């Protein structure tokens, strides 16, 4: 088997990939349920409120990925930035402040990697990733200490975050998405995208690469932090963290959605809707007694199919 580069890209490659991902999901569900009718029930969205909430969170984190990767910067610490964002939301008194605090704390959390990268050339993928673990332990400290809810007897849990309505959560995503789209139309947005072609190109354009490395990573961290804040405060119930449940996994879903969407803001929105659906399927399976982590496997297979779609878009497969 060989791959031959196509003269003209082949957009149907992505349709094939989507079909493949759907088929994989169906097959996995069938395997778990053994019956077609209950399989189809698992594939259905049962709770639109829940679905939209997940969509909003994944979408916001996906925008964090888009901002970073489109600039050629490798922030892969969205999970940690979302954790500290959620932590900030716990400490807030009203939902608006929670979002603002999440945004700012996420920004602050991404700042050390950004500074290290901009001034010392330290690889930001490593630093952002490792700070995720720091974020988790920091959150545990706060849950046991300053943010512990004494009213919850018998188990260690934090105080509750203020409640953010579903409309507000989806609204936050809309603001973020429109913001990123508008940003990309501006000169600063152009410089940010130029950065992906190398720091020299930014300098050639007359701008400072240092500034745009800082801007790209800080904004990416801020959006992930906002995503974390939206996630915890838009829950219907249980808007608190426990020692065991700090990380939610939405950081990784967001990163996946950013890449599945081809790093375009609109594409990432569409991919987020898809990832949110896979998440819903995972939850439905959990009801049947399967581990909810199946959702991770489904998102992973979607990523693999997305990659296959990209290969088919650019290459022809020759079986010889």
């Amino acid at each position, binding site marked *: 088997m060989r791959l031959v580069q196509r003269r003209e890209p082949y957009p149907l490659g992505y349709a094939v990939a989507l079909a493949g991902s759907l088929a994989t999901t169906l097959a996995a569900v069938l395997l778990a349920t053994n019956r077609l009718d209950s399989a189809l029930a698992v594939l259905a969205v049962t709770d639109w409120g829940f679905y939209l909430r997940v969509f909003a969170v994944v979408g916001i984190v996906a925008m964090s990925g888009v901002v970073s990767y489109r600039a050629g910067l490798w922030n892969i610490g969205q999970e940690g930035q979302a954790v500290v964002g959620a932590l900030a939301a716990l400490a807030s008194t009203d939902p608006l402040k929670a979002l603002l605090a999440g945004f700012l704390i996420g920004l602050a959390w991404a700042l050390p990697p950004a500074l290290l990268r901009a001034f010392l050339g330290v690889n930001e993928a490593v630093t952002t990733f490792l700070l995720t673990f720091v974020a988790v332990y920091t959150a545990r400290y706060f849950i046991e200490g300053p943010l512990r809810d004494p009213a919850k007897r018998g188990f260690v849990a934090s105080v509750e975050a203020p409640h953010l309505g579903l409309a507000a959560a989806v609204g936050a995503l809309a603001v973020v998405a429109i913001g990123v789209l508008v940003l990309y139309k501006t000169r600063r947005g*152009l410089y940010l995208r130029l950065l992906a*072609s190398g720091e020299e190109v930014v300098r050639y*354009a007359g701008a400072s690469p240092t500034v745009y490395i800082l801007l790209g990573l800080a904004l990416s961290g801020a959006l992930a932090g906002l995503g974390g804040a939206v996630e915890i405060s838009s829950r219907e119930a249980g808007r608190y963290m426990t020692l065991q449940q700090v990380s939610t996994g939405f950081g990784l879903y967001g990163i996946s959605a950013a890449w599945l969407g081809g790093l375009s803001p609109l594409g990432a929105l569409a991919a987020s809707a898809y990832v949110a659906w896979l998440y819903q399927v995972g939850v439905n399976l959990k009801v049947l007694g399967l581990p909810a982590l199946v959702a991770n496997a489904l998102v992973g297979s979607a990523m693999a199919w997305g990659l296959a779609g990209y290969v088919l878009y650019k290459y022809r497969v020759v079986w010889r």
Partner: protein
Amino acid sequence: MPFLRAVGIRKFFPGVVALDGVDFEVERGEVHALLGENGAGKSTLVSIIYGVYLPDGGEIYIEGKRVEITSPRRAAQMGISLISQHFALVETLTVEENLKLAGVEVKRALEMADMLGVELPLDKYVAELTVGERQRVEIVKALAKESVLFLMDEPTALLSPRESKALLSTAKRLAELGKAVVLVTHKIREAVEVADRITVLRRGVRVGVFKKPFDEGELLEAMFGKVIQRSVYKSAAGGEVIYRAEGLTGERVRDMSIELRRGELVAVLGVAGNGQEELMELLAGFKRPQRGRIVLDGVDMTGRPFAEFLRRGVVYLPEDRGRALARDLSVIDNFKMRCFKDCVKKLEEFRELLDIDIPSLSTRVSALSGGNQQKLLLARELLLRDPYIVVASYPTRGLDLETSEKFYAIVRKVVKGAAVVSLEDVEEAVEKADRIYVLSRGRVVASFTPPYDVDQIAEAMAS
């Protein structure tokens, strides 16, 4: 019978005839120099003999037998080895480990080294070796693998004078051992010193094969052609000095001073790798000099950010277009790097003017051909902006003749101040420039004004 004989070799690259029916042969026991200036086709010929390129015409014979050298691996099987500037050695391994990796017995390698009269630092890591030492390891490796033909492509380019001497005597020694050696060089002295025969190439054509005793004057003329006295530009040369660089020093560039007068087009000539690119970066303000001063219109610009140079109308056209164009972004996004309004309209206008072949404005720049990328760059930097000082690194490399003529026409027409271009082609410089600086080893070694004497210029370049 010659070990290798190439007959009527032809090679075309898009828009260029790199080799036009070249004959070449090399015998066992001789050092045969392949002499010519940059772009004469030496490297192309060597690449064909080593199987990197397939020729578009002609035949190659090894010991009288017609062969097709389809790959470097094939070449190696036929006893051909290439000692190039890029080494096939693993830097993080020792010399001994590298030899083993190449399937060479250490004992045999030591014997070969002994025969050649060179030392083999077995325990040293390749990363610690000088360029000359690496070359010696390569040569010993090739020798141990029973190579007969040693192709050396500009082997002294990166060597210190002492190492160069050592390398040249190694080449001689190889010939004494009955090997065939091809020494590719642009340095006449070097060729004269070691070669038994010299083949001179100029613009893809073999000018002649010379035997001992060599006449340097004759070789120079063969390399560069007759003295050309072309019409001199009646530009405003003699205008006031608007740009002055004094004692610029960078990593390779040493203490360089250059002046530009209003209306001038100045060429910086030199064999590649003598610091031209860095000089252009320094002149354009893209890189900060370690020492020296840049004065533009009486204002000291030394060490100011590149954005400041841009504001004063400095245009920098780097050798590597990837520094000036974001290859992953669309044509229009790249244009907007400098364009602030009516960008689509302006781009359409320039597209017509320069005949740029763009499928659509949202096409990625990486999908355009090199020539079209260059045209896009020229449109953006020269036509869109109001250029005052143009600093261009090999601006016509890779362009067809028509487009490169267009480049000079545009520069003459739109540049309000002056232009400085680095070139590698003497004739191009003589034809286009009001003044020529010759660069060697990071220094200006000579400057010329019309009427030019090509011999003198060539000699200065080869020094």
